[in-house]
Each structure stands twice: as C-alpha cells, then as structure tokens.
C-alpha cells in the first residue's frame, strides 16, 4: 500500500457500503414478507381439478409469491385457487408490493441524498486522479486567471486538475468546451487534504499553480504543497511585495505579480515597441500573426489609476525615465508624485489639468470598468490622436473592451495566465524572455526584419517550439553532425532547398551557455537545445528533417545550388 492510499479520505466508507447499511430495514422487511407469504401458501390446502386436496410445494409457493410481488401476475397455477388461498393471496399481493415500494424508495432516497452524491463524486474523482497515466498540473482557483490558463493548457494537450471552492465556478469548469476533459474538485485548495486528493503526491504531478484571488490562500497552498511533496514545483500568484518575499523565502519556483508585469509591459510598450510586440506574440498562445510593433506617439503619459497598480506603474515609469502625469483620487502610500492631479480622470477638467493636449497616451487602469471606459471616451474627445490603454477588470465586460477604441487592453487574469503558461510550455521560452528584457531595441527590430525577409505565407500561424539535438530526439541530424558541420541556416532549410519560415531565437548549449538570437552562420553542436519561432508548419517539417540524415543531406545540396544560382545572377 503506498502512502497516498492511506489518507483519511480513503478510510471513509465506500458508497455501496453506505447504501447497504441504509437498506438494512427494507431488506429485512422484504425477506420477512416473502417468508410469511410462502409459508402461508404452503400451509393452506388447495384443490386440484378433480377436487382432491392439493398442497403447494415450497418451489411453487415461492414462484407464485415472486411473480405476484413483482406485479407480473401469471395467474392461479397450476390449479385455480380455493377461497382460502385467494384470501391469503390478497395479503401476499399488498404486503409484497408495499415491501418492494419501501425498498425501492429507500434506494432512491439514498442515491439522491446530496451527501451520498458528493461522497460518490469525490471517490470517483480521487480514483480517477490516482489512476492518471499522463503528466498533469494542479490549478488552484478557476477565476479569470485560472480559466484562461486551463484553456491554454487544454488547447496544447496539457492535462490539468482544477480545484475551486465555489460551486458556480466548478460547474463552469465542468461545462467548459475544452478539447480535453478536465478534472474538477470542489474544495478549499488551502486545505492540505484537498491538495492530496487532487494528486499532489502523484508521481506524474508536474506542479501546483496557486492562482486564487487571495494572497493568503496562495501562500497556504504553496507552503502545503512544499511540505506534502517537496519535489513538485509551485508557481504562485502574488499581489503584494510582502507575499512575494514570503513565497521566495521558501524557494517557490515562480512568483507572478500581475501588477509588476503590467507595469513592466507598459514601460516596454513605450520605450521598446518592437520588444513589446515580440514578447506579446511569444507569451500569448492566441496571437497567431506576425507581430507588428505598435506606433507610440511622443509626449508624456497620463496614468489614471489608484492603489497598488498606480504605485507599481509610477515606480516603473520613474525607473525608465518616462514622462507621466498621475491622476488618482488619493495620494499614493509610497510617497508624493510631482504634478499629481486629484480625481478619477472621468471628467474633462482633470484630464486637461494633466495636459491632455500634448500627451502621448492614456492608461485607464482604475479598478472599475465603467470608469476606465469613461476615461478613454473623454480623453478621445479631448485629443483623438492619443494612444489608448485600458484595463479590463471583470471578464463580463469583455465585449465592450473588444469593440471599444483601444490600442491595448490590459487583462489581469490573462496576464497571469500568459506568464504561467510561458513557463509551463517550455523552459527555453522563459530563458529567452529574460534575455529579451535587456536586449537593445535595434537588435529586436533586426530579428523582426529577418523574419519578414523569410517571406512567411500570408496565413502564417506563428508558434514556438524547442528542438534538442540529441541522438534520441534528432538521430538524423546527430549522424550528419558526426562528420559534417551544421550551421543554423543550413538546418532551417526545407527539403526542396528553400528556407523554412522560422527563426532560431535562442540556443542553450549542453554546458548551460545561453546564446540569444544566434546569427545565421551559428555552428550547432550535439546537445544544443534551440528555441524555434515561426509558422506552425515549420515544426512538422523540421522534426522530420532532424530524424532523417538523407533528407538533411539532400536539403543541403539543393540550398547550396539555389545560393550559387542567386549568387551568379
């Protein structure tokens, strides 16, 4: 017996056992009614067709009671009953039918008892989780962030187990239209037993994602998971610096603070639009097209926000040296801000006070969707050339934000989901994103230019994937590399000789060295891991090429021929 089978939840009775205990009285009643009926029929003398005394045997009596009790009623066999037998049959009829109704009614009442149903569902869930044969992630909290993440994961075939304490959300999760069925457990993720039931100790559990709206619950989930299964990585959401420090103090693998990420993205948008576009394309699995850097006008920015988000935004803008004016209903706790305007930003006067006429853009990021929409509409009336960024708080407001005149919509839940997903999908991607942070803008623009030069098909479906040049993953390429050199531009070639519509963003060497944006002539080595970014069709082609030495060699020759032809022409 392994450790997780000995958990207290497993010690509770099995549902069938509970059912039998509830059915004890109806069963005894049924047996006694049958016994008395059979005995009566055997004892009461009958007559055969010649008027002789004829006694029913136990077999016949049991047969008659059985078909009477089940209301089938074959009649009076083998001979017509006497009056005394008919009187007894009246008793048999009513008694047996009532006994059956009582028994069936008891079964139904037990089966429809909510507690019994919950026990049955829970046991079924636990059994299913413990028999899972594929790796899975535990997602705690099915709010806006949790549901987005589960969708991303399910669409890429990554299995997840969802825990949420709210029945409405549990139902939404169960009914959601996802390509993979997800397992949903109703319970408080902060309770250790719930985590165990969700499979935190399962050998195939890849990690626990604490995504609830409450920092304290996320913290509890993280500590519980760390103690219950120390090998399982924990990714947590955190909305306060104190929580972040607390989480990092016991080595939680990933801590995601959505406010800091939003602030960083805003600075990136203003100072390095190309990096912003590339970043968004890579982290959002639903942006499929080739990124176009947004055109951001010059001037100062108007921030309409309050609380923690205002503080992180102001902090980030100051560090990046971006000119801004803050509109906030109350002063920030972190200290005064020069030129702050008191108010919400929904009125034209406050916006004019913040010099909207000369501004580059507005970031409407109050915690109220109505206010954010109002700010953007008022600002647009004042200065139509503004760059509009609006924060969407409630998922139900999505239709207005999709249709509205916004250049960018900030969605808290989606940002958390993107960041978590980027780390779950491929560790290489996250390493690249770290490199992208400090990469000069011209270099990023150069990358986007190189991608355009590849002449991607118009219906390109951008995706990223990693390949490993190991004998098991790429036997053909490894064989070829044992007696040839292989550069990146030689690898990314279609079997017909034309270049594949893909770029290599990052190479991680076997010894751990990281090479961001390797050039075309970069020489590959055995054991290299490459992050490739391009049209989704390139993935299948490349994996095929990597497995076949003959195809690779063939493609090299054709590419060489094409290059010499274009060189001479």
């Amino acid at each position, binding site marked *: 017996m392994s450790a997780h089978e000995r958990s207290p939840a497993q010690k509770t*009775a099995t549902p069938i*056992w509970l059912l*039998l*205990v509830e059915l*004890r009285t109806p*069963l*005894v009643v049924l*047996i*006694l009614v*049958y*016994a008395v009926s*059979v*005995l009566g029929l*055997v004892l009461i003398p009958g007559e055969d067709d010649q008027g002789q005394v004829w006694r029913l*045997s*136990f*077999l*016949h009596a049991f047969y008659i009671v059985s078909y009477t009790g089940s209301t089938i009623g074959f009649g009076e066999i083998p001979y017509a009953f006497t009056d005394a037998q008919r009187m007894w049959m009246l008793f048999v009829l009513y008694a047996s039918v009532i006994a059956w109704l009582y028994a069936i009614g008891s079964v139904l009442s037990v089966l429809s008892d909510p507690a019994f149903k919950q026990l049955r569902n829970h046991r079924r869930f636990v059994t299913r989780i413990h028999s899972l044969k594929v790796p899975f992630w535990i997602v705690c909290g099915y709010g806006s962030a949790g549901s987005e993440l589960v969708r991303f994961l399910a669409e890429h075939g990554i299995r997840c187990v969802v825990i949420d304490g709210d029945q409405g959300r549990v139902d939404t999760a169960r009914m959601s239209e996802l390509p993979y069925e997800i397992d949903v457990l109703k319970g408080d993720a902060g309770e250790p037993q719930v985590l165990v039931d969700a499979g935190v100790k399962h050998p195939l559990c890849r990690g626990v994602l604490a995504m609830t709206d409450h920092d304290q619950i996320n913290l509890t989930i993280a500590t519980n998971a760390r103690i219950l299964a120390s090998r399982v990585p924990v990714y947590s959401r955190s909305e306060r610096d104190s929580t972040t420090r607390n989480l990092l103090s016991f080595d939680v693998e990933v801590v995601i603070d959505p406010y800091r990420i939003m602030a960083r993205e805003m600075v990136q948008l203003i100072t390095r639009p190309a990096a912003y576009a590339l970043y968004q394309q890579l982290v959002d699995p639903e942006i499929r097209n080739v990124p176009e850097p947004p055109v951001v006008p010059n001037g100062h920015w108007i921030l309409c926000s309050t609380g923690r988000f205002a503080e992180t935004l102001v902090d980030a803008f100051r560090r990046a040296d971006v000119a801004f004016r803050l509109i906030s209903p109350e002063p920030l706790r972190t200290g005064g801000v020069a030129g702050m305007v008191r108010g919400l930003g929904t009125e034209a006067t406050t916006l004019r006070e913040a010099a909207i006429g000369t501004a580059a853009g507005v970031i409407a990021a109050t915690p109220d969707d109505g206010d954010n929409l109002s700010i953007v509409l008022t600002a647009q009336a004042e200065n139509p050339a503004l760059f509009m960024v609006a924060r969407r708080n409630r998922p139900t407001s999505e239709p207005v934000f999709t249709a509205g005149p916004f250049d960018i919509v900030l969605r808290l839940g989606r940002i958390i989901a993107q960041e978590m997903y980027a780390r779950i999908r491929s560790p290489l991607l996250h390493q690249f994103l770290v490199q992208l942070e400090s990469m000069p803008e011209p270099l990023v623009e150069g990358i986007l230019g190189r991608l355009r030069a590849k002449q991607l098909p118009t219906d390109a479906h951008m995706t990223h994937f990693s390949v490993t040049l190991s004998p098991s993953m790429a036997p053909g390429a490894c064989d070829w590399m044992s007696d040839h050199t292989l550069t990146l531009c030689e690898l990314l070639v279609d079997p017909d000789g034309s270049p594949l519509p893909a770029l290599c963003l990052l190479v991680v060497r076997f010894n751990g060295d990281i090479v961001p944006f390797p050039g075309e002539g970069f020489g590959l080595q055995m054991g290299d891991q490459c992050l490739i970014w391009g049209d989704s069709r390139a993935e299948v082609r490349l994996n095929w090429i990597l497995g076949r030495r003959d195809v690779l060699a063939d493609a090299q020759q054709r590419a060489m021929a094409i290059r010499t032809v274009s060189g001479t022409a």
Partner: protein
Amino acid sequence: MNTQRVWFAFFIVLALTLNFGFFWGEIDNPDHHSPFEFFLALVVSLVATVLKIGDRSHIGAVLLATSLVADLQLIIAALIWAYSSQVLGEVSPAMMASIVSLAGGAMLANVTSVILLLSETIQLKR
C-alpha cells in the same frame, strides 16, 4: 439494554438452533428432516445476514462472512431439494443425505457466528 442488540443476538442464535433441529436425525431419512424447519432456517439465516451489514469492525466483517457462508450452503441445499422433489419427482436417500450434509456445513458457520458473538460479549466491560 439495547433492543437492536437483542434482535441481533436473537436471529444469530435462532439461525443455529433451527438449523440444528433440521440437521438432527438419520442423514438419509426424509421423515427426520422437516422442510418447514429448513425453510425457517433459511429465512432466519438471511435476516441475520442483513442485520450484520454495517458493522465495520474486524469482528463484524468476520460475522458477516460466516453468515454469507451459511446462506450459500442453505441456498444450494434448497436448490437441490427443489430440483429432486419437483423435477425428479421424489427425494431419494442420496439426495436427502447431500441436503442434510450441506445444512450441516451451514450449521458449522452458524456455530462460528455464535462463538464470535459470545467472545465479543465476554470481552465487554460491565
């Protein structure tokens, strides 16, 4: 005094006594073995089984198992009896012997039940 315990012990002991009454006599002589006594023994044994459901202690599990053994033996004996008397037309001494020996086996299971019941009772603190 607990009424439920009274019924519990009543049915367990009654199952044994009825079965003993049926079993007693020359093994192959149908006149020594009343079908009514057999019928009552079977019914009481079934009721005793149902009453034993729900006790999740170890001794409860063994009690239930002995009862299931007794039921199984008695039901097989009943099938043989019904077959020989109704289909073959008469209960031959050989058939009677096998019916009574099956009931004897069931009685051993009943004895085990009663022993378990007694041992549990003796262990009880007054």
